């Protein structure tokens, strides 16, 4: 078995998880704090879209923006010498955009579930909004946020459609696990894909177990015995 798809996949999923994690929390905080319902619904819709669109359509949009003949892609290529499409960066870009809604929605749900009275209490006690966010909201929302991060990692690991569109299927460069499975089966080598499938199933299962762990841990502050 060629180990390169496994390494590429893990690398892609890890890097994209870190990026999605912070982007997602930031977006969640921004949207949760919006005053106008209409604006919030609109922005929320746009941010969640990659979750429901076919990944190929998302890939299509990425190509529209980052293609070498498109303004952004051209700017990056000509001024910074960076070519995004069909590079490893493209696998990360695709994974970030596809897994972002999962992180964003988990984080938003978790932040919005924090008791409003606690936030108000913080304000009357003279705590700054920043302090309230870091000392009260984040710790209480952490289980939800963590499980969102794990979910985003799993989704990034399984990303196929958008990656194929923008990063292609270049062996040892952009060929991730799902692409490797596809390539082997397409070439008629069922046996060769067994190993990849096993790795994907194994990692995904571990991830789901981790999520459950975070959920159970989430009751830490409300359960009398668990915190002793």
């Amino acid at each position: 078995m060629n180990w390169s798809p496994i390494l590429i996949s893990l690398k892609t999923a890890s890097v994209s998880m870190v990026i999605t994690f912070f982007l997602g929390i930031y977006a969640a905080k921004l949207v949760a704090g919006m005053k106008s319902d209409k604006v919030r619904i609109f922005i929320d819709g746009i941010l969640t879209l990659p979750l429901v669109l076919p990944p190929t359509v998302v890939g299509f949009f990425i190509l529209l923006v980052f293609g070498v003949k498109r303004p952004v892609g051209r700017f990056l290529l000509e001024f910074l010498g960076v070519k995004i499409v069909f590079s490893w960066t493209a696998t990360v870009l695709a994974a970030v955009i596809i897994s972002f809604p999962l992180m964003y929605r988990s984080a938003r749900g978790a932040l919005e579930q924090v008791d409003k009275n606690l936030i108000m209490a913080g304000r009357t006690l003279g705590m700054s909004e920043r302090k309230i966010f870091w000392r009260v909201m984040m710790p209480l929302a952490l289980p939800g946020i963590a499980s969102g991060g794990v979910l985003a990692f799993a989704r990034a690991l399984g990303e196929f459609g958008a990656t194929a569109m923008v990063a292609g299927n270049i062996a040892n460069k952009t060929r991730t696990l799902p692409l490797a499975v596809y390539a082997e089966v397409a070439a008629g080598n069922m046996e060769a894909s067994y190993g990849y499938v096993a790795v994907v199933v194994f990692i995904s299962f571990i991830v789901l177990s981790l999520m459950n762990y975070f959920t159970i841990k989430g009751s830490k502050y409300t359960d009398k015995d668990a915190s002793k």
Partner: protein
Amino acid sequence: MSLEVKIKKRYKDFSLDVSLETKGEYLGILGASGSGKSLTLKCIAGVETPDEGKIVLKGRVLFDSENNINIKPQSRNIGYMFQNYALFPNMTAEENIGVGLKLAKKEKKKRVKELLSLFRLEDMGHKYPAQLSGGQQQRVALARIIAYEPDVLLLDEPFSALDSKLKSELHTEFLDMLNLYKGEVIIVTHSKEEVYRISENLALIENGTITGFGKTKEIFEHPKSLSEAKMIGCKNISPCEILSDNRILCKDWGLVLETEGIPINCKYAGIPSENFEIVNEPGINTIECKLVNVIEEINGYLIVFKNNKRNENSILYFNINKETWNKKKSQNPLYLKIKDFYLLI
């Protein structure tokens, strides 16, 4: 006149229109749930913003819609104790108390320690709120607010999160602790007993407006309006008509009452259910009663009756102790003399 509040806030199906003034004493705000009590406190503390109005605390304008002033809650210096105490569950008692203090680390530690012992929480410093009893949580919440030395203390239903068995015990203890605070206190509650025990002044709130204001004792002893009488729990209230200088007719009961000093705009009469007395013969302010029901309660009987002389259907309630009732219940007909009643507008 240290706190002046005059605010309005509208919602789809509720509107708040409250004006209040405090004079440096404890003020109780009594009202049913959903009457706007908590919302009023939240507006004062600045965690909710009124649509219009003005809030002035010790000469400092906190909110003024006309001049676009809205001081943020962080700078209002108002202590607000939330209904469920709103302790941060992820922080220990110690951390909860110290979290709003803007002191150097060492001083902060010292101050927190002082407060812990002041509120008899010495051994509780390292415990999380979920590990504390209701009473301890209440004390941590109070300590946390007092640590901050607020100009006014707002208490939102301080006892509602405790079970009733503990309540009376904790009342006294809480009042002791509250005395550690030398400023002004506003306490919001739906409990008559709490407000009567704790506050000298009383404001009644109903559907978002203040319907009564005065000394607590005076309101409880002699309510002056229909809503005041209802709020203190007067069970017998009837619309009335002035017959002459000293006589009124209570329409629901078909009963004529004689008394001095009837206000010209008197519209209702109220009789507290304890204010009847069994007498032997008819006379002024006396009803010949027709029993409807006798309900046995813990400390006595609740007698439900009508005026036997009239066909009106409205019933009256009379609370009597068991001994007296057992002695006199065989009397027939039963005459009840009204000892004292309220004339309401």
